[in-house]
């Protein structure tokens, strides 16, 4: 939704988010998606895909996930 339909995040969507997350978690998760979306959009114009940048495998993942990727 943040990527393809930001205005679609209506009252119902926010009510569902708050069933599962605190506002702090929503802020953090949304910020992570916003940073990842923006920079993935940039590297697409370089003809580079997610996780294809040399030397930064696992970039954007939590530390544990990055170590196992």
């Amino acid at each position, binding site marked *: 939704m943040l*990527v393809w339909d930001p205005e679609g995040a209506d009252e119902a969507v*926010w009510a569902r988010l708050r069933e599962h997350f605190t506002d702090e978690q929503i*802020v953090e998760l949304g910020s992570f998606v916003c*940073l990842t*979306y*923006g920079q993935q959009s*940039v590297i*697409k114009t*370089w003809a580079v895909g997610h996780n294809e940048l040399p030397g930064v495998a696992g970039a954007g993942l939590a530390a544990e996930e990055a170590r196992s990727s």
Partner: protein
Amino acid sequence: MTQHIAGTVDEIRARVPGVRETFAYVDEHVLRSGVADPHLKELAFRYLAEDPEVMDVERFAGRERLALEWAHAIAWDANCADDSFWERLHAAFSEPELVDLCCAIGFELGQQHWRRTIGLPPRDETARGEAHGRTA
């Protein structure tokens, strides 16, 4: 438009210290400074926010036109960034300028979408007219 989390953008981010610090760093080092021309960044940020005054790229030329075309490619159609486009970019900008400009556009794109999910306008109207496209 309903705002789903109360406060200014800075107050919302401050709920999570790491988020506040990350965006403060990006704001200071990429959005409000850097090696690329601040005017070109501001122009691209307005294009991302679909400001009608800058959406007709035919009205622009040179580096302004390239900055707008790149904003379009990053936001809506990466296929526009083909070899001929990259030749034009390299003819007009140094590589550090290219890195700075495109990363700024990417950060701004994500921020504008995040703001819209919260029920805020893509850009802070009071930021318009400031020298460097501050969005919060």
